[in-house]
C-alpha cells in the first residue's frame, strides 16, 4: 500500500490507485473530463494536471499511479494557471448555446469554468461548426459542436457493451464524434453515454426539453425493471407541474453500487418508468357490481375484502402475489395468507407471455425485482413450476375469491382462454396494483397500490442482495403501499403484527426469516446487504421459519 501526501495531507491507498482517486479519498477534487473510473484511461482532456515534487512540469493525475513517498500538489500556481488555460481551450470552439442546451445546470463546462476558468475570453475568430441535433440512436441525440472529444462514450461502447458504434472521425479541431457507417447507437445500454457525457453533446431524447434540471428533485431508488436491482436515482419534476407534460418522474439515472451495477443501467430499465404517470393509474378503491362501478373509501374496501376472505375460507381463496411486491409486502402476505389464514392456493409466479431479454452485463430475464425475495420469504409452491395451480383451482370452481396482485393474467404466458374461464368462474375477483389492465377490468374490487416511486421498501435481487428503495413522489390519488393494504385487511380480520412502517415490517421479517438474519432496515443503507447464504445459515425453507 503506497503512502503519499497530497496538498500536505498523507494518505495510503491500494497499489495501482491513480492520483484522481487518491485525492478523492482526501476530499480533494482534481477536475477532469475524460477520466472515468469505469473506463480505460484516455489522458486526452489534459485538465487533471497536478504537480509532483521535483517534476519539471505538471502531469496528468489520471495516468499517474500513487507511489510510496510521492508528494503531490493540486493547487500550485502553475497547475491553477494550466487549468484555466485548458478550460479556455475546451471552450474556444464550444457553441456556448447553454440557454437551449439540456445539459445546462449539470454541465461540467459550466461548473469548471466557474471553478477553474473565469478568464477573459480572447477568441474572436469563427468557431468550427459541426452537426447539431443528430439522432444517433433511439435514445440519444448528438450535438457534435458541444462535444469536447473526451471519448468517454467511445470507450463505453468499446469496452463495456463491446458494440463499438461510436468513433472520433477527422482530425485536429475538425475532430468529430460520430457513428461508424451503417451503425446506430441502439445497444441495450446506450443511455449510459448520456450520463457519462460531461457536457451537452449527448442528450437524452426522452428527457430533452422536458424540464430544466435545476427544477428537479432527486430520490434514491432501485430499478424495478428486472431482477438485477440496479441502483438508480429518480429525478422528479414537482416544482413546475406545467413542464414535462405533467409527468412527475422525468428520468432515471444510475446510482453507483460497486456490488450490483457499478455506474450503469440498461435502457429497458432507464426508460421503463412510463407507467408511473400513465393514464392507466388506479387512483381510488372501486367496487363493481352488475355493470356499475362505485368508488369506495378505504374502510369500505378493506371491509369488503375482509368479508370476502371470511366467506371464502382458506380452501376457497386463491392468491396470486407478485415479485414486483417488496419484501415487506410479501412478508405481511405470508403472515396473513400463509401463517394465519392457511390459504392453500397461493403463489406469485405468473409466466410472462414472452421471455425477457438478458445478457452477461446487467439484464436478467426475470423482469420483476423481487423473485428471490419472494422465494426466500417462502412463496412459490414446492414442486410447481409456477402459480398455475391457483389458476387450475379457479377453473375447477374451487375458488370463491381470487386476489390478484399486479398481474395481467390475460396478457401472460398462460392460455388466454383458460384465464378467461378462471376469472369467469370465481365469484369475487380482487385486483390490487398501481395500474389498470385487462385483468383489473374483470375484477369486482379494485385496490390502488402505490407505485414503487411513491413508497419505500426493499427488494432482494437475483444475487440475494437486499436493497432499499425510497419514496420520491407522493402516491397518486388514494393509492397505498401494498403492505399497508394487507395490514389493514389483516386487522379487519382481527390479526395484527409488529410494524406500522416499512422499517418495522422489515425488521420483523429479518427477525424471523433466517436468510435475512442480522439485517435491519436502517443498516441496509444505500448499498444494501447480501442475504445469508444457505450454506451458512439454516436451510431456507418456509417450514423452518420460527413462528
Amino acid at each position: 500500500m503506497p503512502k503519499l501526501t497530497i496538498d500536505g495531507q498523507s494518505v495510503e491507498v491500494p497499489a495501482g490507485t491513480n492520483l484522481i482517486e487518491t485525492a478523492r479519498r482526501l476530499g480533494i477534487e482534481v477536475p477532469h473530463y475524460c477520466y472515468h473510473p469505469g473506463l480505460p484511461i484516455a489522458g486526452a482532456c489534459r485538465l487533471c494536471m497536478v504537480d509532483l515534487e521535483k517534476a519539471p512540469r505538471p502531469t496528468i493525475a489520471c495516468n499517474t499511479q500513487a507511489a510510496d513517498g510521492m508528494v503531490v500538489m493540486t493547487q500550485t500556481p502553475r497547475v491553477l494557471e494550466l487549468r484555466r488555460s485548458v478550460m479556455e481551450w475546451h471552450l474556444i470552439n464550444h457553441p456556448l448555446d447553454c440557454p437551449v442546451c439540456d445539459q445546462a445546470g449539470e454541465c461540467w463546462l459550466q461548473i469548471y469554468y466557474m471553478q477553474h476558468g473565469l478568464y477573459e475570453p480572447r477568441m474572436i475568430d469563427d468557431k468550427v461548426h459541426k452537426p447539431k441535433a443528430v439522432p444517433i440512436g433511439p435514445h440519444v441525440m448528438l450535438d457534435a459542436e458541444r462535444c469536447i472529444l473526451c471519448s468517454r462514450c467511445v470507450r463505453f461502447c468499446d469496452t463495456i457493451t463491446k458494440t463499438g458504434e461510436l468513433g472520433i472521425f477527422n482530425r485536429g479541431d475538425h475532430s468529430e464524434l460520430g457513428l461508424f457507417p451503417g451503425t446506430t447507437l441502439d445497444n441495450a445500454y446506450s443511455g449510459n453515454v448520456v450520463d457519462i457525457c460531461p457536457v451537452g453533446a449527448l442528450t437524452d431524447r426522452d428527457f430533452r426539453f422536458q424540464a430544466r434540471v435545476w427544477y428537479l428533485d432527486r430520490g434514491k431508488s432501485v430499478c424495478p425493471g428486472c431482477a438485477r436491482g440496479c441502483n438508480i436515482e429518480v429525478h422528479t419534476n414537482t416544482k413546475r407541474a406545467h413542464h414535462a407534460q405533467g409527468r412527475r418522474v422525468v428520468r432515471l439515472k444510475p446510482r453507483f453500487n460497486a456490488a450490483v451495477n457499478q455506474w450503469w443501467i440498461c435502457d429497458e430499465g432507464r426508460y421503463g418508468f412510463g407507467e408511473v404517470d400513465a393514464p392507466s393509474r388506479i387512483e381510488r378503491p372501486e367496487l363493481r357490481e352488475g355493470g356499475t362501478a362505485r368508488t369506495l373509501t378505504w374502510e369500505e374496501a378493506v371491509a369488503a375484502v375482509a368479508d370476502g376472505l371470511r366467506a371464502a375460507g382458506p380452501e376457497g381463496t386463491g392468491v396470486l402475489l407478485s415479485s414486483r411486491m417488496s419484501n415487506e409486502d410479501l412478508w405481511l402476505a405470508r403472515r396473513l395468507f400463509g401463517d394465519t389464514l392457511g390459504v392453500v392456493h397461493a403463489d406469485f409466479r405468473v409466466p410472462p407471455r414472452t421471455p425477457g431479454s438478458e445478457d452477461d452485463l446487467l439484464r436478467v430475464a426475470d423482469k420483476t425485482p423481487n423473485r428471490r425475495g419472494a422465494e426466500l420469504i417462502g412463496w412459490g409452491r414446492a414442486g410447481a413450476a409456477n402459480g398455475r395451480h391457483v389458476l387450475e383451482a379457479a377453473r375447477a370452481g374451487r375458488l370463491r375469491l381470487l386476489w390478484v396482485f399486479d398481474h395481467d393474467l390475460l396478457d401472460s404466458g398462460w392460455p388466454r382462454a383458460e384465464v378467461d374461464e378462471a376469472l369467469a368462474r370465481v365469484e369475487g375477483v380482487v385486483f390490487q396494483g398501481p395500474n389498470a389492465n385487462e385483468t383489473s377490468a374483470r375484477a369486482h374490487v379494485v385496490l390502488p397500490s402505490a407505485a414503487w416511486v411513491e413508497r419505500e421498501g426493499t427488494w432482494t435481487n437475483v444475487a440475494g442482495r437486499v436493497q432499499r428503495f425510497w419514496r420520491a413522489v407522493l402516491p397518486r390519488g388514494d393509492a397505498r403501499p401494498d403492505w399497508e393494504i394487507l395490514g389493514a385487511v389483516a386487522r379487519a380480520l382481527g390479526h395484527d403484527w409488529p410494524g406500522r412502517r416499512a422499517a418495522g415490517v422489515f425488521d420483523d421479517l429479518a427477525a424471523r426469516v433466517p436468510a435475512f438474519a442480522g439485517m435491519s432496515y436502517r443498516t441496509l443503507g444505500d448499498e444494501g446487504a447480501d442475504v445469508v447464504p444457505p450454506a451458512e445459515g439454516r436451510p431456507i425453507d418456509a417450514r423452518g421459519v420460527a413462528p
Partner: protein
Amino acid sequence: MTEPVLSRNFDRPEARTLAGYQAGGGYEALRKALGLGPEGIAAEVKKANLRGLGGAGFPTATKWGFIPAKRTGPVYLVVNADEGEPGTFKDRYILERDPHALIEGMLISAFAIGCHTSFIYIRGEYVEPWRIFSEAVRAAEAAGLVGANILGSGFDHRIIVHRGAGAYICGEETGLISSLEGKKGWPKVKPPFPAIKGAFGQPTVVNNVETLAAVPPIVTRGGEWFAGLGSKTQGGTRLYSVSGHVARPGVYEASVAITLRALIEQAGGVANGRRLKAVVPGGSSAPLLRADEIDVTMDVDGLRNAGTMAGSAGVVVMDETTCIPDALHVVARFYAHESCGQCTPCRECTGWIYKITGRILAGKGVPQDPDTIVDVARRGTGSTICAFYDGAIGPYISYVEKFRAEFDHHIRHGACDVRPTPARRVGTH
C-alpha cells in the same frame, strides 16, 4: 568535403541491387556483427555517440538499453520511414538509392536487441521508395539474408513492410505504433513507453531510417571512428535536406559539427544574390534562426544551446523576400491540418493560431494578436500527450518573437512590408 558515409552509394545506381550493394562491401558488416554478438554491437553504437536522426536526437544505444532483459514475449524493431517533417526528404534517398544499407542496419540492430520480427512503416506518399525497398527485401530474402538462420548464425529475422496512409502524426513513434496495429493513428499516453509496452503490447524499439543506416558503417569501422566524425556529444555525419532560397537545394551529407553557415554555403548560398533573412535548421518544428544566428554547429546540443533543435536536419532557407507572417501561416496551416485532435491543447490551439495568422494576413489583425499567439503557445508547452504540439510551438513563438515588427506592420497597415500584396488566399484547412 567529408568522406561520404550515409550517402556512399547514392551515386551508384547498381547499389540498389543486392549484387551491386554486395560489390561495394555490403552485408560484410552484418557478418561481422553476428560475430560481435548483441553486446558487442551495442558497445560500438554507444562508443559511436550515435543519436537518433529522426528528430528527437535521443542516444540510440540508450534507447536499445531500455528493452527489459527479463521478458516473456517477442521484441519488435519498428523502422520509422514515415518521413513527414516539412523540409525533410533524406530518408527517401536511403530507401530509393541504398535500400540494402537500411536492411543491413535493421538486421544488425534487430540482432543487437534480440528481435526476430521488424516492421518498417513507410510514408504513404512514398510509393516509389516503397516499391524499391520492398524489392530489396525480397532480394535479401531470396539470398537468405532475411529469414531463417541468417548466414548460418542461427539468427532468424523477418521484415514486414507496412505503408502509412498520409498522416504526419503517424511519424510520432506511438502514433506510428497505433497505426501499425490497425488503429487510428493516435499517439499513446505514456507511460508505458514503447520499450516496455510498444507494438502489439510488446517491448519495441522505434528507430529512424537514417539512424539504422548508420549502424553498418559503425560496425565495419568502429564506434570510435564514427564518433570522431562529429562533435563531442554526437558522432558521425548526417544527411541534411536543404531547401528554400538556396542556389542548389538537395540532400547534403556533412558532419554533425558543421556550422549552419557552412552548410548553406555548400548548397550554393542564398540564390539570386539576395540577402538571407532566416533559417529553419531542423524541420518545420525547429524554432527559426535569424540571419545573424547561423554561426552554430548543427549537432543536437549545438542547436539546443542556440534555442532551436537539430530535429530531422531539414534546413529551410528564407531570403529577404519572405514574409514571416505568411511563412508562419503556412506552418500553422500544416499543424492545424495534421493535429490528430486527440488531446485538447493541440486540437484547439493549432486551429486557433492558424485562424489568427490568417486574419492577420487578411488585414484584420488586432494589436493583441502576436501576444495571444505567444501566450497561448507558451501555456501549452509540455501539456500534451505527444511532442507534436511542442513542435508546433517552436515556430509559433520564434516566428513572432524574432520578427515581431512584421506582424505589427501587417496588423497596423493591413498589408505586407516585404511583398506588396498578400500572396496567399486565406481559407480554412
